[in-house]
């Protein structure tokens, strides 16, 4: 293998990119867009959900439990309490009205406290203190269940408010068991911290895989491949040149993502940045190799392009980029472990969030190395069999 020829092939691929401003824009913007959009949407909690309240509680407002809960709810950002109906509005049938609002999808939820709410709660508290039992006070919550995330956010906030009111005077009911998580890793980590390594892996894969498929399709459709193979350059040198060029593209791209993620979202990187880049490079080399192999074994260019969704969709969905592998159904779990992106994402997270070094991620690194080597060998084989 001659380095000069490998570099000539790599340079050709990079120069072709440089002349194609739109593709360069795509390469830089795509991950930037991904991290920004995902960062803002997933990164923040659900906020300002429109909610109507009906409080028919008969207790005077300074003793009313419902009023205390409502006051606490007002302090939470999740809910945007637009309207509170009281007993004085009974003529307009506020309960039916707010339910209708939910049904018409004008608001996400309606919360209704009945007339005996405070007295029910007080009876139940007295019963607990006296060692007997009484039915708990209840209030109704009508929620638009279209989006499970929103349902969870509303219920979560309601429970927090109820608990807060009960803990404080005059009730002072402290739950006998408290769960207090002690984070081993990721203190102060937000969703974006979990997400950034995933996006880096995903972007590296998508871009290198697509670039090599498309470049090689071009190489086939023109006679440039024939032309290359009639020169002293060997199949191995062509493959190495491609790997070098697109591995480099993956590196540049991941730096863009890192800079954006750190600058815009203040993500924290605990571990060694070089280890991160090494993993990205190996994974980029492997992914472009996969594209190269598929593109060269395909009978037609159209077939080659069809491989894109076949490879990308399972990778995006099953590799733990958006949700943990543990959330993937058992039947599909083996597929997850067969997808290289799974190991890339796991390795990147371990370094970036857990701050692990080589001793912690050697397994993932080994898998990525094997992926790269196998793909390079397969690419060489695929080129040779074309003769």
């Amino acid at each position, binding site marked *: 293998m*001659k380095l*000069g*020829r490998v*570099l*000539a*092939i790599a*340079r*050709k691929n990079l*120069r*072709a990119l440089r*002349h*194609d401003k739109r593709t360069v824009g795509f390469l830089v913007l795509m991950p930037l867009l991904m991290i920004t959009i995902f960062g803002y949407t997933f990164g923040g909690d659900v906020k300002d959900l429109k909610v109507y309240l009906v409080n028919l509680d008969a207790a005077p407002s300074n003793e009313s439990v419902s009023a205390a809960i409502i006051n606490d709810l007002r302090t939470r950002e999740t809910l945007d309490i637009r309207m509170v109906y009281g007993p004085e509005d009974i003529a307009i049938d506020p309960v039916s009205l707010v339910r209708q609002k939910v049904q018409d999808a004008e608001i996400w939820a309606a919360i209704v406290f009945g007339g005996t709410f405070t007295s029910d709660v007080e009876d139940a508290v007295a019963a607990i203190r006296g060692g007997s039992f009484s039915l708990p006070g209840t209030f109704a919550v009508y929620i638009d269940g279209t989006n499970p995330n929103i349902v969870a956010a509303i219920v979560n906030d309601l429970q927090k408010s109820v608990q807060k009111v009960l803990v404080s005077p005059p009730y002072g009911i402290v739950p006998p068991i408290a769960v207090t998580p002690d984070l081993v890793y990721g203190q102060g980590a937000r969703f974006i911290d979990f997400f950034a390594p995933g996006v880096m892996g995903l972007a590296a894969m998508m871009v290198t895989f697509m670039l090599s498929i498309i470049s090689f399709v*071009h190489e086939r459709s*023109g*006679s*440039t491949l*024939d*032309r*290359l*193979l*009639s*020169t*002293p*350059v060997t199949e191995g040198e062509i493959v190495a040149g491609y790997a070098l060029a697109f591995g480099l593209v993956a590196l540049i791209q991941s730096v863009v993502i890192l800079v954006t993620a750190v600058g815009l979202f203040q993500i924290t990187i605990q571990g060694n940045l070089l280890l991160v880049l090494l993993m990205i490079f190996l994974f980029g080399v492997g992914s472009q190799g996969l594209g190269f192999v598929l593109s060269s074994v395909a009978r037609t260019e159209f077939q080659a392009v069809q491989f894109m969704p076949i490879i990308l969709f399972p990778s995006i969905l099953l590799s733990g980029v958006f949700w943990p592998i543990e959330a993937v159904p058992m039947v599909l779990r083996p597929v997850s472990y067969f997808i290289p992106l799974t190991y890339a994402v796991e390795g990147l997270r371990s370094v970036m969030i857990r701050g692990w070094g080589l001793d912690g991620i050697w397994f993932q690194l080994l898998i990525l190395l094997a992926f790269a080597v196998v793909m390079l060998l397969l690419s060489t084989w695929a080129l040779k069999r074309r*003769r």
Partner: protein
Amino acid sequence: MGQVAKAAESEVIRTDKLRKEFDGLVAVSGLNLRVGRGRLYGLIGPNGSGKTTAIKMLVGLLRPTSGTASVLGERVPVRKNIARVGYMPQEMAIYTDLTVHENIQLFGQLYSLSSESLERREKSLLKMVDLEDRSDSLISQLSGGMKHRVSLASALIHDPEVVFLDEPTVGVDPELRVGFWKYFSDLKSVGKTIILTTHYMDEAVRCDTVGMMRTGDLIGEGTPKQLMEATSTLDLESAFLAYARRSGE
């Protein structure tokens, strides 16, 4: 040195019963070709007669189904002598997303030319194909004929001893075509061997030897003059038709 060895040395290209089938379809059927050093050999024949397939086997892009072929005394696919062989495919064989200069640089680097000799060769070749002022243009911005000329220049960048040119003059305007043929004869005069295909029969008269191909085999071979005399015709096209009739009988 024996007589046989001497003959083999002056024989730059030799094929014996060279055959290529694609899924049972015969493209080249038992071709026996001899091309001596310093000859300008033209393969003529209609589309599908096997010219391109034969050339692809000679440059090592296709494996023969049976028979043998050698270039510069080495059996194909040639590796040892590959840098002494040049090839210009029929279809566009340059990178449209690179400039003229970058294409020529790439191929020069693949032949491991030093940067000085690469620069020198690039300059003289671009002059030959009349593209000196388009060196920094992207190929995609050039006309069809210009692309073809870049393709030719890049095939000759390493100053090969044997050059395979598959339809080198397609899409080249008549004036420049004359220039091309002048260049081919210049190459010949310094001892280079050229084997080219063409379907412009009038051009083929300029070759030393013409091989007429039809359905994968030679149906006639000789100097243009011999071929016309043998068929009592006045041009190669009529000669070809006469040979075709004869072989069909």
